[in-house]
């Protein structure tokens, strides 16, 4: 067991890589009642075409990672995982994103028992024709629920407009048609490829003892046999640099048009510290462009072109990265032309030095506030780790970012040729 002390954050992290390849991290929070644990696989909706070393290359139906997440809660002999957690007072859940699937619980008692339940249920696949079929009705309703959600449609519309080939443009849950084709054999194929311990990370944060926790996990894993697994090759066809479409419109009853726009990053393939640095620099840059204290934001708000739900974000992974900004607007075209005007002006002048210093302070404060939440720590830590970087080294990276870095990012990223726009408008 290794121990790393982060003095500036007043946090101590413990970790161990087990014999079967599982990465285990424990962050004790003295004085906390609750323990929050996540068991994550580096496997999400984009991993629909892959090859495990020495095995066949496979393509699987859209939405299968998310389907698998649902089905993991099924146990042999009709056992119910939620009931098992509930008996020990734990609240359990799971979610699937583009590049990971996360199983989790939080509990204030029987923590090690609950942790064992978490590990065991995720490591016990049990799929039958019957239980796979049953789930199609439930997930069908989940898909329909999202169809009625204008913000989700807006967000996915943007990704669909930007990406032609990369599976990030495919809805995480798939479609009613694609999940209709999923079989238990497909589920086992994906399970065996991506749920090997060497592709997984366990993170435990809260009122726990690090040594005891890691010991329990070590013993639990020693009782199970895993053949060593070769590397997983994720196969992505070449995504063109340019956007697929400049504009995508969805029709759904809304009180005001919704407009989300963003830039598709040209350079891909960044990993680890380089990616972390670019992410943080871009986020700072976007905050200086679109943040609620900027001149741009205030002008557009006073011109009644945006509402207080105008927001922005940056998403990135090794093969794709894009920014997104927007919200409700009475006039999407006028909004976009005003944005272009103001942003071009900033591209000429560059950012103001005092605005930059303040934005940096804001980001650092936001980061520290995030560390109050065990949930956020676990999710963010895992996400960073899967991309080869470390959540706890964010502050020094922020400190080292210079005004010229942010100005350079503005020139690189904000390229109008890379712009896509997604709109949700009421039916005509």
């Amino acid at each position, binding site marked *: 067991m290794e121990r790393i002390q982060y003095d*500036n*954050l*007043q946090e101590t992290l413990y970790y161990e890589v087990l014999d079967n390849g599982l990465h285990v991290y424990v962050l004790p*929070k003295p*004085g*906390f*009642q*609750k323990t929050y644990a996540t068991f994550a696989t580096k496997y999400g909706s984009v991993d629909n075409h892959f090859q495990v070393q020495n095995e066949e290359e496979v393509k699987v139906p859209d939405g299968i990672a998310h389907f698998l997440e649902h089905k993991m809660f099924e146990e042999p002999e009709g056992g119910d995982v*939620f*009931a098992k957690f*509930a*008996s*020990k*007072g*734990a*609240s*359990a859940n799971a979610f699937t994103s583009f590049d990971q699937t996360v199983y989790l619980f*939080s*509990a*204030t*008692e029987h923590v090690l028992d609950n942790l064992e339940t978490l590990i065991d249920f995720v490591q016990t696949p049990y799929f039958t024709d019957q239980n796979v079929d*049953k*789930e199609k*009705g*439930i997930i069908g*309703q*989940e898909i*329909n*629920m999202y*169809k*009625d*959600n*204008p*913000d989700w449609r807006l967000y996915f519309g943007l990704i669909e407009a930007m990406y032609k080939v990369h599976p990030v443009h495919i809805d995480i849950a798939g479609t009613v048609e694609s999940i209709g084709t999923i079989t238990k054999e497909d589920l086992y194929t994906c399970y065996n490829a991506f749920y090997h311990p060497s592709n997984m990370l366990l993170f435990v944060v*809260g009122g726990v003892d690090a040594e005891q926790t890691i010991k329990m996990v070590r013993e639990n894993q020693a009782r199970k046999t895993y053949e060593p697994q070769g590397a997983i090759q994720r196969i992505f066809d070449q995504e063109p640099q340019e956007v697929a479409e400049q504009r995508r419109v969805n029709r*759904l*009853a*809304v*009180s*005001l048009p919704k407009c989300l726009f963003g830039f598709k990053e040209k350079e891909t393939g960044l990993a680890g510290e380089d990616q972390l640095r670019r992410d943080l620099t871009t986020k700072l840059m976007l905050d200086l462009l679109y943040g*609620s*204290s900027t001149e741009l934001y*205030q002008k557009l*708000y*006073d011109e*009644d072109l945006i*509402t*207080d739900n105008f927001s922005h974000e940056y998403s990135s992974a090794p093969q794709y990265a894009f920014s997104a900004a927007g919200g*409700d607007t009475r006039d999407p075209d006028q909004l976009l032309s005003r944005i272009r005007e103001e942003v071009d002006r900033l591209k000429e002048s560059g950012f103001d030095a005092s605005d930059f210093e*303040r934005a940096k*302070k*804001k980001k*650092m*404060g*936001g980061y*520290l*506030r995030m560390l*109050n*939440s*065990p949930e956020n720590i676990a999710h963010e830590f895992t996400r960073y780790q899967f991309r080869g970087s470390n959540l706890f080294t964010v502050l020094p990276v922020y400190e080292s970012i210079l005004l010229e870095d942010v100005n350079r990012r503005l020139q690189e990223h904000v390229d109008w040729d890379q712009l896509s726009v997604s709109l949700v408008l009421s039916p005509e």
Partner: protein
Amino acid sequence: MTTKMGFEHGQAGGIRIHVLPTRRFKTFAISLYAGSPLAEDTVTSTALTPFVLRRGTASYPETRAFRERLEQLYGAGFGFDVYKRGDHQIVHFRMDTINDSFVQSEESLLDSSFAFLGEALSSPVLENGAFRSSYVKTERDTVRKKLEAIVNDKIRYAAERCIEVMCSHEPYRLHPLGQRSDLDSITPESLYQSYRTWLNEAVFDLYVVGDTTLEEVQNLVQQHFKMDRAQVSDYTSSVVASAAREPQTVIEKLDINQGKLNLGLRSQITYRDDNYAAALMYNGILGGYPHSKLFINVREKASLAYYASSRYDGHKGIATIQSGIEIPNYDKAVDIIKKQLEDMANGVITDMEMSQTKAMIRNVVKEMQDSAFELIAYDFNRVISGKERPAEELLQQIEGISTEDVQHAAASFSLDTIYFLKGQKEE
């Protein structure tokens, strides 16, 4: 005075103050609650007030400068919410500021935060003795857009329509953000007048959780809150339990893919009552968790829905059930849900359901201790209901609940409204 939750209580400037000194968190969590009776003629102006206050103060009259100030305080979180608690309308301001020990700050971030909050609340930017007219105009539009946007989120829309039709003769039908029809007639002068009245008459409770003391907070309030309140005011319990009636069914149409089914139940039990714990157990067994009857029967067994759950609002004495279903499955879903309500009333409850639900509620109550804002929200239950029930006591009461107690509580829950939102095309 100290209550068992660890809060120290005092007052300053006509405001009640509650402080929990602790070093467990990296921030100072500050909550300011201002509550007033939910009433048709004040609901909209009260809702609009914080929107105008967030635009600028005497020292930072321009909104950009106001927001830049927050960024200088290491991006202190500042926000507000307007919601209902029982028959009260609550305006809730929140700040979350980094504890200075994590950053090299040249100013005391707690002091600066109080200066900021105090000014935002009590020294807004004025012109001609009223609010700045451009701010009132823009924020009136903002509130109007928010009210109009409720329909965008169909799950929330259906939930709010259900409450509206259920409580059509009570103040509780009102949306916390007010009524669209009132907005046009609100002027900078009329809003300023209602703001002054609100400042004097609303019930104010200020909470701080973090590395500080009651005394320090009292001094900060004296220094930074320019309020001239005659005395501390208190909530008067106004919740009157409504009589049970024959359930009504309301069906509405909208352009949607999935039907949203919402049921409203009345209960005689509220937070003040001794059998509140039994009502919590009732809700937990019925639909509060993934092991509950609704999730198991509507989702897992019948495969009808992705979500199927219940919620209990102890301050109002209402429980609601919500689920999203295929539109033709309406009858099937209603039958299954009614069956669960009957089973609750008949005491068809297993020991397993009892023990699992107890464990889950225990977990929720204990987890609260790890979140500054949840600790605050729990203590505020005491303030608004007038009933002191420390977490330890609630835990004891939950442990003592028997199946008979839950069945007894179930008798106080009666179905009042079935609300179904379906597609335009459906008959």
